[in-house]
């Protein structure tokens, strides 16, 4: 009997378990999946929780429910990966593997910036990238009636890179609805040179910030949070003061990657961008936020990766060359507030452009343009996530590789 071990039962790990269970020969392979937590969170929902758009219950379910029968689910902390001996050390015991899939994701590391994880953490300084953070922020926002809200990105890469911008847009709508918008100043602070991480978007969507009266501070590389004087300070002593700081701290891979000496500076695992095989060990594959590939760290990306990776695991088992297939395809809805959203579809090479999706001319979704229909798409994503994505069911009409159909390429 051979062992395929999946580390992490988040979006990517759960999808891989569902894909592989029906494809691996049961007499030959045993699939194990390990995660430390009982709860599977719908992380995209953390954007909506602070604004009372989603409830606590809507963003969490028991993780085990999504692991198919026939897969050995182990709820334990992973201590170390011993790649030389093909072993995984758990809190209690060890697992040996023939093939390993690392899907341990990424998480915030607020201790990377001086003064961030201070006594003001979750009092005037918040994150919304964790369940606890989003919930604490919800309670804070319910009370917040005037002052300076600063929405801030510490450094790239972060998962779902548009989420902080969406947060700023939703905050604008939220405060308007509560009729306190005129007493609240919203500032968006980014280390990049534009509000959007892709240049073309920055150019064509710059108007959104102006329309919503959101101030923009770019090229801001934070050095420290001066929590005593409620301001953030960058390396050239620029300062932005806040009453409420909503920051996206540095995102890093799990410490287990560091303990196992398998990662880069940020504990992301060096991975082949097209095959998803780790660069160091041929029987280790990496998927989702845990990789260092230059694609978005997003659930939709993990979904496209899972299809390629499933094929590649089977090719690997049969001693065939791997497909260099994954193209960095990402498909993200961007909430712009007032029940509207944008949709962007892009890959390693192709920047987001205007057009229709998934069908040329017909749409029904509009690329790079605000619409109410796109907003429904974003909200429908929660249902798709729990009922299709995690189960590895193909999303109709959306293929793993990006399609040029419907896109206005001649920009």
């Amino acid at each position: 009997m051979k062992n395929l071990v999946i580390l992490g039962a988040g979006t990517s790990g759960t999808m891989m378990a569902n894909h592989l269970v029906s494809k691996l020969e049961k007499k030959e392979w045993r699939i194990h999946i390990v995660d430390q937590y009982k709860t599977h969170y719908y992380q995209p929902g953390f954007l909506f929780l602070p604004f009372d758009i989603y409830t606590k219950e809507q963003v969490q379910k028991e993780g085990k429910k999504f692991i198919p029968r026939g897969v050995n689910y182990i709820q334990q902390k992973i201590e170390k990966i011993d790649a030389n001996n093909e072993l995984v050390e758990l809190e209690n015991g060890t697992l040996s593997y023939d093939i390993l899939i690392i899907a341990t994701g990424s998480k915030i590391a607020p201790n990377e910036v001086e003064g961030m994880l201070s006594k003001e953490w979750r009092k005037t300084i918040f994150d919304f990238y964790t369940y606890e953070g989003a919930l604490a922020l919800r309670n804070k926002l319910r009370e917040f009636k005037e002052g300076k809200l600063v929405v801030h990105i510490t450094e790239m890469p972060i998962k779902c890179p548009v989420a902080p911008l969406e947060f700023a847009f939703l905050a604008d709508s939220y405060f308007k609805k509560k009729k306190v918008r005129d007493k609240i100043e919203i500032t968006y602070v980014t280390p990049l040179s534009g509000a959007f991480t892709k240049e073309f978007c920055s150019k064509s969507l710059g108007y959104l910030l102006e329309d919503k009266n959101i101030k923009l501070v770019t090229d801001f590389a934070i050095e420290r949070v001066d929590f005593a004087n409620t301001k953030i300070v960058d390396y050239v002593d620029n300062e932005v003061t806040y009453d409420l700081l909503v920051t996206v701290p540095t995102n890093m891979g799990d410490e287990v990657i560091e303990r196992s000496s398998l990662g880069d500076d940020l504990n992301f695992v060096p991975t082949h961008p097209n095959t998803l095989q780790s660069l160091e060990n041929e029987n280790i594959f990496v998927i989702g936020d845990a990789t260092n590939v230059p694609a978005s760290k997003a659930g939709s990306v993990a979904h496209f990766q899972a299809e390629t990776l499933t094929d590649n695991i089977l090719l690997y088992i049969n001693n065939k060359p791997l497909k260099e297939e994954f193209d960095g395809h990402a498909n993200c809805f961007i909430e712009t507030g007032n029940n509207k959203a944008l949709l962007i579809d892009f890959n390693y090479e192709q920047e987001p452009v205007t057009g229709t999706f998934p069908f040329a001319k017909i749409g029904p979704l509009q690329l790079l343009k605000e619409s109410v229909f796109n907003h429904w798409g974003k909200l429908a994503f929660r249902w798709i996530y729990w009922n299709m994505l995690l189960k590895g069911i193909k999303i109709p009409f959306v293929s793993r590789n990006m399609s040029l159909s419907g896109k206005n390429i001649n920009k």
Partner: protein
Amino acid sequence: MIKTIKKVDIHVNDEGYLTDFSQWTKEIGEEIAKEYEIEMTDKHWEVINWIQEQVKTNKALSIRGIKKSGVIDIKQFYALFPGGPLKVSTKIAGVPKPKSCI
């Protein structure tokens, strides 16, 4: 796009980054630096060499990477290349602008 620096035609993209590193010389670096009112010193060149080395070995460039470079700390980096230090220094070094992934 073609840009002429010291009578030499250089291939650059629409943001002014060299598209062919083999055309790079120290002199060209110096001229690009002047556009940002930077007078190159030994310390500047040390950073530029380090950046070129990183790119050659396919390592991603980031502000965080600078911290661990052993060549310079972030504060000095900003002091040497005011504005966006990573954008400016890579342009002078003749390497592609670091990609920030969405």
